[in-house]
């Protein structure tokens, strides 16, 4: 790690957060604040026959679809607008918003909510992939329950299979995952100067503005969204705040008073989006020398009852379907299905962890079947610079996987432990190799986002930075300042970067897709150069900069052909475990990581991303079980949906290698999601080596290990 920008600084927000000065949405005071609660569907699929309400005392309101102004629409403007603001006549999933109950006293609001009785006529719900594909109970979405279907093709797969010497198949499944940001979802909507203002714990202020304006049928400029310090998000506050903000705006518009809508933990676990469950089947053809010559992948993800960002999640899952491997002939079919479960949505990795888990496990299963060493087999198939990708373009990255493997092997002693544990009854070690495309898929940055940033010379030699990407824990308040300050020759304290307010900042796009540093950070760097050039024009001088797509990256969205991502982050994780043959509990003995994120903007912040991403991913792989029963999540509290504590996993040993990307700020690439991708397959592989049985699904629970051993 040699770059000057990588030298750590103390985070700008560390003190105010650690000491409890920082204000989160629940910490603000508003005059005359009203409290809202959602009336939600208790049925997965039903007609609403009647809603029996008590008499509401003065000052208490029941707000539903009938309160949407005639200029507006009962649809949430997300990527699609099929998700309704309020359910009318029928419900599609447990937890769907039917109305808001609000008033000055929280307890009274709850009492009123409990007195409401809904009479339903149940319909036949679809919950599983099989239910969805069979259109059980009639299609939930369209005519066939398919939100999106894509086919990717490279080479001549059918021909290659004909020539295969052997064919190996496997089926891999992953479950729901709850984000469990420590601060629950929350917004406060107010009526200020004749305008709706939303204070939001959120990732994407402009998404909220768009959805609220669409619901009320007013110009975008009539809605103001102000992000407040956000206590974790991980994708869970990307689109979901729209689902709260739109009905909330209808209520504010009706009563013209501030209303808070802050979830308690039980609501948050029970009634927010989760990571998409997946079911991926892979069939591989090999030649006599054990080279992979053909691969066919069938990917299914469960989108739940509404579309939201599901098609894009599916795209990312299949675009990462071949992992880090060069497969000359491959075909990937991806389908996202509709069911009567809570809509699935963005979660750190956005489909890639599902695709990568499947391919990594499959590669290890092939090696096992052929009696080969896993890492040798995987390494033999590594994609290299200029190899053809699944979207029929070239891998543009300078791929440094071999160098990274040498590094992690040295750190973890992987190769010798593999041999040592081969016959050990309780110990195992696993390795996973991943990449993660930074920024929006294909030409999304160019066609959809067209991000803009602005900077301005302020008094006292300070510079103002105006961007719409937010600090949500990942360190942006510090790293963005570092980028701008570095260009301007200022200290980071002299760069002013407030939480985004849509009335003030230009739209630089959402905080997601590992784009904030790589894409927006680069815009900031370029903008800072412009400002520097005219700095002497004096206080008030402004500069703006808009995204320009590098010409060498070409993409055709209709056919999903070309350069799916301009650059990838790359990573390797090794996990070592020991299991207890009596209780089937697994203890993790070591975790190692080597990452290529281009250049780390701050090495300590990146260490934090590495440890944090990996531990969250190890939770996903081991203990985070979220199950459905009749369409409802069975886990409701932090006691029954458990996440890793400080005792569950050992310290993560992390190393970064430099590999600058020419269109990233100081060479930086995306990193926030990459750090999640490798740990689940590395963990599952370690457990399978320990128990001597193959693992196909996560989370790998003790019950699953017991079952595998009894087979």
């Amino acid at each position: 790690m040699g770059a000057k920008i990588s030298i750590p600084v103390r985070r700008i927000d560390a003190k105010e957060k650690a000491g409890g000065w920082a204000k989160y949405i629940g910490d603000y005071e508003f005059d005359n604040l009203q409290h809202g609660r959602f009336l939600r569907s208790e049925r997965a699929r039903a007609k609403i026959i009647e809603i029996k309400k008590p008499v509401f005392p003065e000052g208490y309101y029941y707000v539903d679809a009938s309160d949407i102004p005639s200029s507006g629409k009962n649809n949430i403007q997300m990527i699609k607008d099929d998700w309704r603001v309020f359910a009318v006549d029928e419900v599609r999933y447990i937890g769907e918003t039917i109305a808001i109950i609000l008033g000055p006293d929280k307890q009274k609001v709850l009492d009123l909510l409990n007195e409401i009785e809904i009479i339903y006529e149940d319909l036949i719900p679809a919950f599983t992939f099989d239910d969805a594909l069979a259109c059980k109970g009639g299609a939930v979405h369209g005519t066939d329950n398919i939100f999106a279907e894509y086919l990717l093709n490279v080479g001549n797969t059918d021909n290659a299979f004909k020539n295969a010497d052997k064919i190996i198949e496997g089926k891999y499944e992953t479950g729901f995952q709850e984000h469990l940001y420590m601060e629950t979802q929350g917004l406060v909507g107010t009526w200020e100067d004749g305008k709706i203002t939303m204070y939001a714990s959120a990732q994407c202020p402009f998404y909220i503005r768009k959805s609220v304006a669409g619901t009320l049928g007013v110009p975008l400029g009539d809605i103001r969204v102000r992000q407040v310090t956000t206590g974790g998000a991980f994708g869970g506050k990307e689109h979901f705040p729209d689902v709260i903000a739109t009905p909330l705006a209808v209520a504010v518009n009706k009563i013209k008073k501030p209303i808070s809508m802050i979830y308690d933990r039980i609501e948050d676990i029970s009634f927010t989006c989760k990571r998409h469950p997946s079911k991926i089947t892979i069939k591989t053809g090999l030649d006599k020398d054990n080279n992979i010559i053909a691969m066919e992948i069938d990917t299914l993800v469960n989108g739940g009852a509404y579309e939201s960002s599901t098609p894009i999640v599916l795209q990312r899952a299949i675009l990462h379907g071949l992992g880090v491997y060069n497969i000359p002939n491959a075909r990937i079919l991806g389908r996202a299905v509709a069911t009567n479960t809570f809509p699935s949505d963005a979660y750190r990795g956005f489909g890639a962890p599902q695709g990568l888990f499947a391919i990594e496990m499959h590669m290890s299963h092939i090696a096992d079947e052929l009696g080969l060493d896993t890492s040798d087999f995987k390494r033999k198939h590594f994609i290299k610079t200029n190899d053809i990708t699944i979207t029929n373009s070239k891998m543009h990255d300078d791929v440094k996987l071999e160098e990274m493997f040498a590094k992690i092997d040295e750190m973890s002693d992987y190769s010798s432990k593999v041999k040592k544990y081969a016959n050990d009854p309780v110990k195992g070690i696993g390795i996973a190799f991943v990449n993660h495309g930074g920024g929006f898929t294909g030409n999304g940055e160019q066609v959809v986002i067209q991000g803009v940033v602005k900077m301005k010379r302020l008094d006292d030699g300070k510079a103002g930075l105006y961007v719409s990407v937010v600090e949500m824990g990942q360190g942006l308040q510090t790293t963005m300042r570092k980028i701008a300050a570095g260009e301007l020759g200022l200290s980071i304290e002299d760069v002013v970067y407030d939480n985004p307010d849509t009335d003030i900042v230009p739209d630089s796009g959402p905080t997601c897709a590992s784009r904030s540093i790589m894409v927006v950070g680069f815009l900031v760097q370029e903008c800072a150069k412009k400002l520097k050039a005219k700095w002497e024009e004096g206080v008030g001088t402004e500069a703006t900069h808009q995204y320009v797509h590098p010409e060498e990256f070409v993409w055709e969205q209709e056919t999903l052909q070309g350069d799916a991502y301009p650059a990838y982050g790359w990573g390797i994780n090794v996990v070592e475990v020991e299991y207890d043959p009596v209780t089937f509990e697994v203890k993790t003995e070591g975790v190692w990581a080597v990452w290529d994120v281009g250049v780390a903007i701050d090495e300590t912040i990146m260490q934090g991303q590495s440890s944090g991403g990996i531990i969250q991913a190890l939770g996903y792989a081991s203990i985070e079980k979220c199950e459905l029963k009749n369409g409802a999540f069975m886990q409701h509290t932090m006691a029954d949906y458990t996440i890793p504590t400080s005792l569950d996993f050992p310290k993560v040993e992390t190393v970064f290698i430099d590999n600058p990307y020419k269109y990233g700020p100081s060479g930086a690439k995306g990193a926030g999601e990459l750090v999640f991708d490798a740990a689940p397959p590395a963990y599952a592989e370690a457990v399978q080596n320990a128990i001597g049985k193959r693992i196909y699904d996560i989370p790998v629970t003790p019950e699953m290990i017991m079952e595998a051993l009894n087979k």
Partner: protein
Amino acid sequence: MKEIKFILNGKEVSVEADPLKRLLDVLREDKRMTGVKEGCGEGECGACSVLMNGVLVNSCMIPLGAVEEAEIVTPEGIRETEKGKLIIDAFGDAGAVQCGFCTPGMMMATEALLTINKTPEEEEIREALSGNLCRCTGYDLIVKGVQIASERGKDLW
């Protein structure tokens, strides 16, 4: 409704409220001490950590009635003290803070630990923080923050 007297951050206070009201709500709503956070409301996460007679407790699990005469310390009560500043700086230097929602609680847990064990081993730190959940950091850099605090604060605790 009952009048309950207790010592809050060194000052005697009296609160008139339902004795079953959660201490968490008393602190956040009546006393506007918003450094105490609600992460779960059921004793699982430690975001609401305070010290009660020097012992780390989850204020969401303590009814107001139970703090009669007790000494309660919140993040507001230690952040300006020498020890508090030292912990905050140590967390800052370690990179222990990400979204920050768990961090005031982590500061309280650190204060409680260093009071009984000035030079804890990594395992002891992990044990002491195990009632405080963090979804962002994976704990490594928080552990490092406690280690830095312990090194720098040898003469304080």
